[in-house]
């Protein structure tokens, strides 16, 4: 029995800061100290502390160390693990005192951890640890006590809305597929996560892969599917490996495969890798990609719940959506509704990025304000600079400014200011940045990612880049601003899919709040024209 557990966060953020070599050194030093019977080193997903170097936690003491360097390892081992003396120099002090010793999970102030309850707390490569945290209990309960209709009803009554960006009611979507009569149906977990500034799905997959698999099993049971696919971005090597491993373990335990728990229900899951295309996050493009084709979106209707993968009824759900489902089954819809607001129950995982002191992954109940997220959890903007704007939901997201700092965030309030929660990315931009250049950066992204299928998006994004470039390179005029506005308006109404329709959102948003900046730049341009002519 191990007396002490040292948890080390092993996610791409910490690996980029040297976590692998620190882990090796820890294991070696613990061996040298003769402590290998007493101390176990466990790799986990992100611990929710970012940009502070390599992060370790020593349990049962609950002491967090950050910025751990190779030369610190022997001191941590000889002082803390051998003598029980905390190395104060490396101790992370942001964790509230009361949550240090008793609770395994730090509370991180205003955060509430539902989806992330296990991430960073268990070894994601161990199915036993997941099971010890009530893992697969919801699936077991469903198979033994509930009919598929019951499962569907619980999810529908919880009011859960999908977390992939569109916030479509999950229960309603499942209901469409459940009603279809078909020999085959499919569940697809959308882990293509390509929205700039978003990395929540990856950290869920890497920190708690079994929660996602269990969610898929429950979805499969509810709609009568026997096969599930996790479509993971090709660049996410670690997620792919962790999910594959989790699938193997679940198969070994009889949680996937034929006649699960003797219930007569068969369900299997496979990983499908993407090959680098942002548009494949759109559900019908994703389906095309699994079918081995160019990932171009399909015409809708028919929608995937009636005609999806290989022409069969298919549910596409986001990683965060699926990872939440097991807990709704265990704790009930009323519990879920008690979190968040009336229009948007539950918690939301955000990734806080950009010009912010404490960037990273957070989970908060909906209804929280931008001010609380930026100034309390995010600890404000670096170098004493001012707040210019926030973009919520990724590069296709709406623009919020200082007048929105106290708006409680939920879908209804955001809709009233032409924004949404989207992917959960929250990009904070300080007042040293020029808005026109920022908008040009957005436009370049869309132009790069447009799949080329429809003219409005393919040509429209290209023209937007040209017009913005004209302004930022000194040869634009106020007429170009009007042209940008008109073109963006047309794209919004007539593009084929969500990419072309949403690309204008941040552009028009910036024009709405910062038109003066555009005009100032155009006027500067005009003053320079005689010189360049």
């Amino acid at each position, binding site marked *: 029995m191990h007396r002490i557990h040292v948890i080390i966060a092993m996610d791409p953020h910490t690996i980029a800061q040297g976590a692998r070599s620190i882990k090796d050194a820890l294991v070696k030093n613990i061996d040298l100290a003769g402590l290998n019977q007493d101390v176990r080193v466990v790799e986990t997903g992100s611990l929710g502390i970012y*940009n502070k170097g390599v992060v370790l936690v020593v349990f049962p003491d609950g002491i967090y160390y950050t910025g751990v360097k190779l030369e610190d390892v022997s001191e941590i081992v000889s002082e803390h693990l051998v003598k029980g003396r905390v190395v104060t120099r490396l101790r992370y002090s942001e964790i509230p005192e009361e949550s240090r010793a008793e609770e395994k999970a730090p509370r991180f102030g205003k955060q509430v951890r539902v989806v992330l309850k296990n991430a960073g707390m268990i070894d994601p490569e161990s199915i036993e640890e997941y099971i010890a945290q009530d893992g697969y209990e919801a699936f077991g309960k469903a198979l033994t006590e509930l009919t598929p209709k019951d499962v569907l009803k619980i999810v529908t009554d919880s009011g859960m809305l999908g977390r992939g960006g569109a916030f479509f009611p999950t229960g309603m979507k499942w209901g469409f597929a459940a009603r279809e009569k078909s020999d085959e149906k499919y569940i697809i977990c959308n882990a293509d996560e390509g929205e700039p500034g978003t990395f929540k799905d990856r950290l869920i997959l890497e920190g708690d892969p079994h929660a996602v698999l269990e969610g898929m099993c429950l979805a499969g049971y509810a709609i009568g599917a026997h096969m599930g696919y996790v479509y993971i971005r090709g660049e996410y090597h670690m997620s792919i490996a962790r999910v594959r491993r989790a699938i193997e373990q679940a198969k070994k335990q009889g949680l996937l495969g034929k006649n699960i728990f003797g219930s007569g229900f068969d369900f299997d899951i496979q990983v499908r890798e993407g090959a680098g295309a942002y548009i494949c996050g759109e559900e019908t493009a994703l389906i095309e990609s699994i*079918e081995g*084709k*160019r*990932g171009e979106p399909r015409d809708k209707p028919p929608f995937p719940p009636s005609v999806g993968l290989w022409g069969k009824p298919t549910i596409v759900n986001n990683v965060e959506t699926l990872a939440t489902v097991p807990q709704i089954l265990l704790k009930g819809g009323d519990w879920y509704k008690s979190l968040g607001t009336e229009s948007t129950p539950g918690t939301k995982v955000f990734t806080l990025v950009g010009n912010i002191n404490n960037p990273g992954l957070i989970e908060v109940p909906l209804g929280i304000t931008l001010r609380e997220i930026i100034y309390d959890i995010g600890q404000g903007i670096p170098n004493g600079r001012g707040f210019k704007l926030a973009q919520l939901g990724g*590069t296709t997201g709406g623009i919020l400014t200082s007048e929105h700092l106290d708006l409680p965030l939920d879908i209804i309030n955001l809709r009233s200011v032409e924004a949404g929660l989207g992917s959960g*990315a929250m990009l904070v931009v300080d007042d040293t940045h020029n808005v026109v250049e*920022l908008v040009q950066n957005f436009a*370049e992204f869309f132009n*790069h990612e447009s799949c080329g299928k429809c003219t409005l998006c393919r040509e429209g994004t290209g023209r937007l880049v040209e017009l913005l470039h004209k302004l930022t390179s000194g040869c634009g005029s106020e007429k170009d601003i009007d042209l940008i506005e008109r073109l963006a308006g047309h794209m919004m109404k007539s593009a084929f899919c969500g990419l072309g329709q949403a690309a204008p959102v941040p552009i028009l948003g910036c024009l709405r709040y910062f038109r003066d900046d555009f005009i100032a730049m155009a006027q500067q341009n005009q003053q320079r024209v005689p010189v360049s002519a």
Partner: protein
Amino acid sequence: MSDLNRIDQIVAGYQSTQSPLIYILKDVQKEFGHLSEPVLTRVAEATRIPLSEIYGVATFYSLFTTKPKGQHIVRCCNNAPCWVNGSKDVLEKIKEYLEIETGETTEDGSFTLEFTSCLGLCAVAPVMMVDEQVYGNLTPEKAVAILRDFKTKGSANA
């Protein structure tokens, strides 16, 4: 250069997989370095999928390439979260150091410079990826130092 017959073996290995084209192209690219016309033609013959369709797929996804690339692939992120943290200056410095534009390969064939879309490492932005390794919290100087390291290691191996 590998033997084109390898392609038949790769295709045969996916007989029981439904819609395996993307997997086949990944494996073939690993083997041949890039997806040239003769290679894609052979894939078309082995899979009985029209060459036009295969070419369409091979040119759609950013992880596939129909042109040969440098020994090391440098992928810079310039999406908004990196951009507001200074990725533009990093990218300019890298271009200056390697003496190429994005999308190009250095004359000696040691580096290809590309854009990557967001790698989800925004908490340590700006970031770049060299081959499979990621580097965060970059400054222009730090980025050049990393590439210089690759250059010296590269010539030591040669």
